């Protein structure tokens, strides 16, 4: 709440007008960041226990941030059909995870593993001091994919064990 008001005051934005953001005040947030903060996409949760869901839970202890990113995967094609996030942290961390959920949708799992934090940082024009927020988002994507793959191995393993006992 406070960030939204402060940001609006700082930029004099009432509508989504583009402003020369680099007006010498180094604490301004880029309008992309504000956009993600005001209109967060994909906030929420999936059921952790759903076998098509991969959950990535990461934290940045230096600034006390936590980020949860979940992906829903189509089992047959291996494509990510949907994503949700929940982040407690600064505006940059929230925006980074929001961007991450947008970018993973509709992509294959192997493809999203190539998403780099530098791309997210560039998209949001993050200042150097906030680069670790984008790193956190990259790690969250990787953790979500890893979790999904581990779950698949477990369920496949259980199914295989079931088959052998039956046979």
């Amino acid at each position: 709440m406070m960030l939204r008001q402060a940001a609006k005051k700082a930029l004099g934005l009432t509508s989504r007008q583009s402003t020369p953001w680099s007006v010498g005040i180094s604490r301004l947030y880029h309008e992309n960041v504000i956009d993600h903060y005001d209109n967060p996409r994909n906030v929420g949760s999936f059921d952790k226990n759903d076998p098509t869901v991969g959950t990535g839970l990461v934290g940045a202890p230096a600034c006390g941030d936590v980020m949860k990113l979940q992906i829903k995967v189509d089992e047959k094609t291996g494509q990510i059909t949907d994503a949700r996030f929940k982040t407690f942290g600064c505006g940059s961390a929230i925006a980074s995870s929001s961007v991450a959920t947008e970018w993973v949708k509709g992509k294959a799992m192997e493809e999203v593993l190539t998403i780099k934090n530098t791309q997210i940082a560039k998209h949001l024009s993050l200042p150097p001091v906030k680069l670790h927020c984008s790193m956190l988002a990259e790690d969250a994507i990787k953790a979500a994919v890893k979790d999904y793959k581990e779950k698949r191995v477990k369920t496949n393993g259980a199914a295989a064990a079931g088959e052998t006992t039956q046979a």
Partner: protein
Amino acid sequence: MNKATKLVVSISTLFRQTRSSTFRCNPIPTIAIINSQTHLRRRESLEPNGLRFAGRVFCSESGVKRSFFKCWNCGFSSEKVAFLFCDSCRSIQPVDDSVDYFQIFGLEKKYEIDDGILEGKYKDWQKKLHPDLVHNKSKKERDYAAEQSAKVTEACRTLTKRLSRAMYIMKLNGINVNEEDTITDPALLMEIMELREAIAEANDSNELNQIRSQVQEKLKQWSDSFVKAFESQRFDEAVKCIQRMTYYERACEEIVKKL
């Protein structure tokens, strides 16, 4: 004169005789001895200005010319590095980075400190250094006083709060806690997630205060764990304690914002 003082005097005469930088390498074995003596003496005397050996300064990387203290005003030189004032002419000295926050307040370099001493000493120093109170001194001294006053304030702030004190004491031991690494400990992160969600969903101040007191309990608990880990030199564990404390502090700040 005891053995330690004898050693110092002989080394400092050596330095005074030959002010060349080649000597920087040689005294290192003797410096090690002096340093261990220094360590012992510091534990015995609680006096803040008690025997600050030149041995400490010998090891500073800024070169031979800082190997002993020399006042800019009266030229008085000694093995003792004055913290704020020259012993001879009482003029204010520039900030010396090798003096750490614990030394400023005359405290031992450990985590448990007496808050009363901290506050008392802080007021004492500010009486001498505060920019408003040094009008009658030269410009140079007023500038030094301003720098020193800022350092003392920073020192007090760092040492007052448990978390910053813990991080500082780790830094003094060469362990930098604030590295930007991501962690994936599921148990810890789940707990913090749930905590932050509870704070976000809490609607009245009663609920928030309840959560806050729980978090403060946890803070105290982990602060105690930190002390144990640190004193037994289990630095990895100490870092984990500090990480947890950071998360709880952040949660407390959120609660305060909401209240």
